[in-house]
């Protein structure tokens, strides 16, 4: 889902950069001492996830892990994903420097959305609600990223529907796998470290 350099028009790039800067500044403001290692670890996880590709379906899609980043980090997933994307752009020319902003927004904004949608639900101790919410979180984050990428490409490629259908179809296996990964991560964390779930900020430190 990394958009390459030179595909998007200047207004889209500028909008992306501005939104990313806003998101990152919100994230940095909320980042305190204890959160830094957590942000770094999830940044590394995101960095590595792009190398795990899912060999099912029509296209070579890779894991994104923005759902799990979002639910564990909230707004902090903006700086986390920005760092990982910047390194991917510099080291491997995935994406690029000019598209860094828009790529960050495409990945991090769904993460933040999922944080607000699911962080309360994921905390539930009993019943099927927590696993279901975790799965939905992983699934929806990738889905929303696909929609955002399609929206960005709307201005360069002809029809939104065909691009969106292509991207979402290609990423359907990824969505399901990410849902499962998020489900297991949440279940694991709920057992060993429940404080990590639901509300990275606001619990005081």
């Amino acid at each position, binding site marked *: 889902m990394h958009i*390459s350099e030179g595909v998007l028009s200047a207004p889209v790039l500028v909008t992306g950069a501005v939104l990313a800067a806003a998101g990152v500044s919100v994230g940095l403001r909320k980042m305190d001492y204890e959160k830094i290692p957590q942000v770094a670890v999830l940044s590394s996880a995101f*960095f590595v996830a*792009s*190398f*795990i590709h899912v060999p099912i379906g029509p296209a*070579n899609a*890779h894991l994104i892990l923005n759902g799990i980043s979002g639910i564990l980090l909230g707004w902090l997933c903006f700086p986390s994903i920005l760092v990982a994307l910047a390194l991917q752009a510099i080291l*491997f020319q995935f994406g690029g420097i000019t598209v860094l902003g828009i790529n960050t927004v495409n990945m991090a904004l769904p993460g933040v959305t999922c944080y607000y949608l699911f962080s309360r639900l994921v905390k539930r101790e009993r019943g099927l609600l927590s696993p279901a919410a975790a799965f939905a979180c992983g699934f929806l984050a990738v889905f929303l990223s696909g929609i955002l990428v399609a929206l960005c490409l709307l201005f360069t*490629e002809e029809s939104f529907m065909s691009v969106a259908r292509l991207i979402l179809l290609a990423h359907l296996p990824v969505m399901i796998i990410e849902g499962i990964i998020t489900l297991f991560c949440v279940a694991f964390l709920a057992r060993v470290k429940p404080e990590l779930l639901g509300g990275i900020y606001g619990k005081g430190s």
Partner: protein
Amino acid sequence: MEKGHSIQISLVILLLASILVISSNLPALAHKVIIFAWVEGDTVFTESKFAGGKRAVGAQVQVFDKEGKQLLEGKTDNRGKFSFKIPKLTDLRIVLTAGMGHKGEWAIPESEILEARGVSEEKRSGEHSQPTAAGLSKEEIKDLIEDSLDRKLRPIVRMLTESQSKGPSVNEIVGGIGYIFGLMGVALYFKNRGKRRHRDNYND
């Protein structure tokens, strides 16, 4: 320690992910497309691939001249290849659009086209030149050398394409993770310094 615990857990997750990556032998990834083009005679051959080696099938190829005017366009075949006759003597810019925001570029300078064309023209004129009784004419020798060089160099050209389209190595990935933790160290350092200064002021 509570905090130490959470970091440990995350590290374990990260480690598992890295093992997964390394054991999966870094397969083809759809992050980046590469188009590679070379000139033979009056034809330009191109090959398009995703980083990691998967061929870009049915992707759009556009050819632009020096001024940015589009000369022609076409689609890659099921082996990621596309070739065209050079429409005009100019610097060519070949742009590949593989959909979903993937784009690659390759430039062919005018000099390269001239060189390749020169060779083929000499070849043509060489056909008319009469061989001397003593054996091969100068042109024929030149032709033979050009031909065999073309043949010999083709695998090397191919190798260059392949090495260009190879995905990142494990070293680079581990290096990237190292960068992230280095940045974490820097962030912690600055946060900690601010904290200590604050505390010192408070104690004064």
